[in-house]
């Protein structure tokens, strides 16, 4: 029961054999010509299997730094706030959150 029943399409089997013989023939040639050109396959810069892990970690770090930023905003008084510290924290947090959301999109199948 593992294979689905191909009775209805079995009459087309010979025909597909026929057409696929020709396709096989041409594709073998193409394979040879591809090897001649030394075409190497291109993959994504980061292995696709890593996307979920990366997204979890970068988002977690990004959210932690966002929390630090907001705690600083809440506890410091107006006079004592330092713009440099705020900008630095927000820059680092936005980098991590940006990459985290990108990997989240990629891991869920939206290949942007």
């Amino acid at each position, binding site marked *: 029961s593992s*294979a*689905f029943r*191909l009775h*209805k*399409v079995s*009459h*087309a089997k*010979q*025909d*597909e054999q*026929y*057409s696929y013989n*020709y*396709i096989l*023939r*041409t*594709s073998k040639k*193409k394979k040879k010509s*591809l090897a001649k*050109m*030394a*075409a*190497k*396959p*291109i*993959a*994504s*810069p980061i292995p*696709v299997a890593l996307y979920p892990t990366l997204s979890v970690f970068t988002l977690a770090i990004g959210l932690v730094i966002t929390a630090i*930023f*907001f705690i600083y*905003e809440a506890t*410091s*008084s*107006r*006079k*004592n*706030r330092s*713009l440099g510290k*705020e*900008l630095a924290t*927000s*820059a680092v*947090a*936005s*980098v991590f*959150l*940006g*990459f985290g*959301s*990108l990997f989240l*999109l*990629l891991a869920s*199948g*939206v*290949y*942007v």
Partner: protein
Amino acid sequence: MKQSSVVDLLLLLLAIAVLATPAFSDLVLSKVERRIDVTSQVARVTKTLKVLNSGSESVSEFTLTFPKFLGNNLAYLSVVHSEGKGKSKRPLANLSVREANAKGLPDSISVYSVSLPKALSKGETLTLEVVAAFTNVLQPFPEKITQGEIHLVMLQESAQYLSPYAVESQSLSIKLPNARIESYTKLENTKLQGSDLKYGPYKNLQPFSYSPIVVHFESKAAFAVAEKLVREIEVSHWGNVQVTEHYNVVHRGAQLKGEFSRLDFQARPNPRGASAFRHLLARLPPRAHSIYYRDDIGNISTSEMQSDSKKTELLIEPRFPLFGGWKTFFTIGYGLPLSDFLFASEGKRFVNISFGSPIIDLVTEKLIVQIVLPEGSKDISVTTPFTVKQSQEIKYSHLDIAGRPVVVLEKDNVVPDHNQHIQVYYKFSNINLLSEPLMLISGFFVLFITCIIYTRADFSISKSSPTYLAKLQWDEVLATLQEVQSIIQKCLAAHDKLEASLRDLSRTGDIQTCKAARKSTDSLLKDLSKDLKPLLGFLQSSPSASHISPKVEELVVKEKELQEKLMAKHTTVVEGYEKKSSGRDIENRIASQQQKIIALRQEIEDLLEFIDEI
């Protein structure tokens, strides 16, 4: 009158022969073997031609002719030059074929011209294999049938090969499906063996000889034709090629007349509905994932998938069986891994992907392939093994600034023989990949900047109202409190350093460093208390801090006490070491002080917590 018309016909044929001979008489086809396969809805003709140059000049072009009704329906034509016989046949090169003008030939013939690899000189032979696929030549006859009738189709062909050259010996074999054969034209040398119909061999025929034959037989093939197929192939350099195909499938066999009875269709043991088809089998590349099959209503669950390392087979069943003239529409989508289809060569990248529909045995009347390349791709060019109509568009998709370039390829009358690979070349540098995360990063950064501006901006309407002023004062009090807190923390840190120096002393016995540590801590604490004074003064003077300032003063006083006690303890311990009295002695002396120190420390920490909570 009859005689003159016969004479006219003969004269016409002679005229054709005379006019045609100077152009075509040099080549002679020594052997022609034709095989026509009509087991599917597409008629495939394979011809093996042995060409002999019996003239004196070398010839570099070969002319193929088809009767017009076949030529109009010609979907695929390929000519291969091969060597060897039988099992050792080796196909060499695909030769270029182009449609040629019928110079001096009657209009009812389509002409194709094949350029030979090298000029055929006098006396040489060449073997050519021609594959031609025709759509719409298997005409359903009768054209309208009821549900219970079988599907009969008719093929019109010529038993003698229509060619502008003389043929020495030829044979024709038609492979019919393993079903009922209604009738066929009986000429001389006609044999029916099982489901193979053989005509020939015929010897020594004139050029342009033609003897029409008609074969009427039952076809069990599914006459599935896609009126329009839009294939969208989206390439993402993050690791995925997403293919989405929108089908409009119609059954182009004999039309159904009368009504459709589901009961008869599903009756056992004799179901009625041999002309309908239920399933379509799609052969997808291996490692296809996230396959979906849906239409405008929603997901269609009648599908099965089986995958192995060479292919992924998807058997789909539309919502209803398709009888003649019935239509259905659906969408198939799947994702493919990028490294199977994207390659780099000579500084450019190319996508190597199949052109036609993955559904086997599907004829497409209008095929539109849209290949969406990532943003920032330049120098786009397409290589196809057959002619297509090309154009370019722009598509705006996720995280796009300027849009993605789309190569649109259109072709009419596509048969499964066209399902070969095409290549799309383009240039792309990986830096452009960074633009997407940069866009997200800048989005988040803008959010943070907004927060910063919001906390810093002053949104009060009136700048002199009592509440506003009170708020300003309270802000100042808070700031001062924080500074006081930080100074007290520094003092406590200094105390900790003193304790640490005492521990070092007990470990190493070095009195000098201990004394030095005490001196430095002393000066540090003096500085800190100086800093503390103006802050205290401010807190005492401001009215809104009236409930806090006593606590702060208490804190400062306690801290001073602690300082003094610690200093005293330190001095005692150092003296004890100088006098070289035993450890227990020292401990006894400082016992009471130690307790007070601990108590004071606790109180200070409580007060600090209280200030923190304000």
